């Protein structure tokens, strides 16, 4: 109920329409990876998914941010079912990779921002290795690149108040890890897949 209202509200405010240009919505297990410019990003991707997919798609988010205050805690645990990871000092017990593999289980999908932090530049920063390790551990999970458009204009880093500019969530062609591909090559290719979707938005 709250999830439904919230996702409707987010879609209304950000005007974020989903453009499935490289794949179709599906309940199969996926890892959506996207450029990260705004605190709205995870919520917007989550909200743009059809409800039966949304229910089993969990954003991977920073524990320090989402456990600060009762509202964020409630939203993270009860509404988004977020996978909260330790980004400052990961320990053996708090290994983000294990947490993400556990969270995928046999039915769920994840939303991941491989840059690890919000970037205010025009293009996404370098991708961290987690995406590669996840791809190796779970070759059955589809890796879907996502480009988020205008989120940094709706709610830029460091601002409290959002402006109702229209956004867009573009889903691309899934990336497959090649058998002999190195970590660096794979991450560069994933990043390029996200950037290519940006070019597609400019052209259309």
């Amino acid at each position, binding site marked *: 109920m709250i999830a439904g209202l919230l996702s409707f509200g987010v879609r209304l405010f950000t*005007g974020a329409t989903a453009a499935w240009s490289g794949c179709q919505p599906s309940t199969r297990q996926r890892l959506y990876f996207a450029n990260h410019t705004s605190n709205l990003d995870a919520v917007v991707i989550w909200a743009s998914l059809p409800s039966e997919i949304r229910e089993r798609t969990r954003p991977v988010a920073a524990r320090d941010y989402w456990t600060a205050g009762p509202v964020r805690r409630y939203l993270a645990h009860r509404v988004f079912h977020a996978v909260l990871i330790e980004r400052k000092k990961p320990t053996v017990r708090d290994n983000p990779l294990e947490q993400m593999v556990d969270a995928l289980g046999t039915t769920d999908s994840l939303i991941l921002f491989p840059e690890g932090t919000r970037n205010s530049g025009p293009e996404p920063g370098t991708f961290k290795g987690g995406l590669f390790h996840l791809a190796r551990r779970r070759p059955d999970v589809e890796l879907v690149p996502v480009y988020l458009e205008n989120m940094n204009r709706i709610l*830029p880093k460091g601002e409290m108040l959002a402006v109702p500019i*229209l956004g867009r969530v573009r889903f691309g062609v899934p990336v497959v890890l090649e058998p002999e591909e190195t970590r660096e090559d794979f991450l560069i290719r994933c990043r390029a897949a996200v950037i290519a979707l940006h070019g597609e938005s400019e052209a259309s």
Partner: protein
Amino acid sequence: MITDLQLRWMAGGVLALLTVSSAIGWLLVRLRGENATLRNLNARVRAWWVMVAVFGGAVWSGETATLLLFTLISFLALREFVTLTPTRRGDHRSLFWVFFVITPLNYWILGTGWYGFWIIFIPVYAFLFIPLRSVLAGDCERFLERTAKVQWGLMICVYCVSHAPALLQLDIRGYAGQNAKLLFWFVLVVQMSDVLQYVWGKTLGRHPVVPTVSPNKTVEGLVGGLLSATALGALLWRVTPFGPLEAAGMALAVTALGFAGGLVMSAIKRDRGVKDYGSLIEGHGGVMDRIDSLCYSAPIFFHLVRYYHTD
């Protein structure tokens, strides 16, 4: 609530026209099979049902509802406009003011009936305020260009559009309590002109007026649309404070201005490399695509009526 008989007749006429249009659309699909043009035509007609219901409902409910509807229209149009405008991080706070303070305030001031303040609020106060708020963010890159674009969006989407509901505020000689009819007449003539230009253009259109801006706006569509919409406006002269000839003149003025508005807004779209401002109204594009003609015709029509028919 408005219980004017003539307004009911006009609303009835519009509903009859919509029914006929829906029937023709259905028949064409039955006879010729579905194609892209017919699909778009039928989507447009369906969207017209919704738009007529919303606009008619608001006018019928009275001045407050009409003002609220136009506030929403301005807000949605401005949103589409600003999305197409490459603003920078330094404009964020100004944009927040523009959307959530200046836009509602413009309509609120209008609603209070304080004409002298409303008419200068955006062109003077907001005009000076926006660059000030942006400069505080300290980003000089393309400063004039960014500021000008936000000001322009505010003028077109909010200030100009708000002149349509402002018709309700005028003390027109010998026309007390009937202003809602004039607003209805104005919107009907302008929008019908768009529709008729589309119909004439689709059937007879050969020569684009400005091919580099919009190949769909043809001389044949323009002339046919303007003349038929002017005839419609003149035929409905009894609902207006004008005589038959003056009604024709007013209708010609607002339809010609409506064309100008469509042309100017098309140039902006073309420059930004998009076909439509948005996708909110199926078959039509965005809100801005539907009201581009109102942006140009509303302020001039308002001032013509104010100059010739109020004391």
